[in-house]
């Protein structure tokens, strides 16, 4: 289960605040995954006191609303990433960025499919730069794209381009994963699926033996 409480002293109308919060949730908490289990209790409550003295925000289509939305997105993304970073048994955070789909929603869906893949997660834990599993997860996300435009980078190592697997330094790629695991850092997977305007990100973590151990013991 994830729970969140977010507070602000901005002055904002109820309908505007409720829309902004859902947008921020979709760009943050709804883009993380540890084990693919959607909890019975997931909740984010967001409260705005209006005590900052700033002017009232009464529409989502104004500069002030965009400034507040950006802050709200940042706080929720910071918290959401810390949840994925602290996934049970995790040794590193996995950040998946997808560009080139037709919309933000489509890119986000591909990114989350990759971040949710047990095979990708286990490959990261095994320090295996397994581009095939990344491509496979992108392919089953339910978003169509031209395979010949598929490009995959692990960190700054290019693994696939134009849909073709490339020769790459496997030891360097594996060491990149090993180092991230040693410092509980971040593994970045960057995927391009075409020339569309949509960009999206998702966050997850690697899948270790400890995840099974923790959950075999944490019983009802």
């Amino acid at each position, binding site marked *: 289960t994830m729970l969140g409480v977010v507070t602000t002293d901005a002055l904002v109308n109820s309908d505007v605040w409720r829309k902004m919060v859902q947008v921020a949730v979709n760009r943050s908490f709804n883009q993380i995954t540890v084990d693919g289990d959607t909890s019975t209790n997931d909740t984010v409550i967001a409260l705005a006191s209006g005590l900052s003295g700033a002017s009232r925000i009464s529409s989502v289509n104004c500069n002030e609303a965009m400034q507040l939305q950006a802050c709200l997105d940042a706080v929720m993304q910071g*918290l959401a990433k810390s949840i994925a970073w602290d*996934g049970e048994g995790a040794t590193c955070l996995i950040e998946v960025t997808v560009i080139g789909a037709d919309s933000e929603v489509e890119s986000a869906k591909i990114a989350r499919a990759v971040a949710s893949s047990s095979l990708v997660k286990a490959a990261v834990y095994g320090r295996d730069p397994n581009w095939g599993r990344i491509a496979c997860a992108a392919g089953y996300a339910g978003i169509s794209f031209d395979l010949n435009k598929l490009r995959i980078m692990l960190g700054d190592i290019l693994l696939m381009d134009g849909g073709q697997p490339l020769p790459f330094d496997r030891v360097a790629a594996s060491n990149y994963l090993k180092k991230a695991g040693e410092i509980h850092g971040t593994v970045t997977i960057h995927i391009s699926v075409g020339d569309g305007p949509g960009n999206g990100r998702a966050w997850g973590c690697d899948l270790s033996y400890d995840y099974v151990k923790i959950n075999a013991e944490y019983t009802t």
Partner: protein
Amino acid sequence: VSSSLKEASKYIPAAPILLPEGPWKQIPGGVTAAEGFNAAGIFGGLRAKGEKPDLALVTCDVDAISAGAFTTNVVAAAPVIYCKKALNISKTARAVLINAGQANAATGDAGYQDVVECANTVAMLLKMKPEEVLIESTGVVGQRIKKDALLNSLPRLVNSLSSSAEGADSAAVAITTTDLVRKSVAVESQVGGKIIRVGGMAKGSGMIHPNMA
């Protein structure tokens, strides 16, 4: 109170918060950074074992404009059902009570009554309307909350409320379950040329694939 909040906040280390770049500055305080908010986290005896804080409260000095996003899991927990109703009744809220240890999910009508009783008791102590009190629970699915221990801890929880960073950090500890770190962050930025603050806390480590709406 301050020393007990400080002690509670140090129970587990802070998570590294990877904030995206932007026109904001990270500031201390989490949920209490914004003007008008108070928080506290205490040990209420709710967890199966150990003495880690397990009961948190966040309050606002004024009627705060409220919003919520909730699991779309059909087997929604009692606090989720309660909060959705409360947000439909009222556009504002004044308090969020959070317990760790039991999720109060798949607990039927009895579990729902537990939520109502907790909200009513917090409302009575804080002199608010029950629908202004929102509830979040986390922990073992299928178990009802340890209601007596929770209700008996409420006066001490209310007396521990603080607008300090320790208040926010102790609350961030009290909402955790299998988390290894507490998750809390706040930023300061400009909106329309005026300084505003946005802060928050979160928990989560397992059963994580949110689809909230």
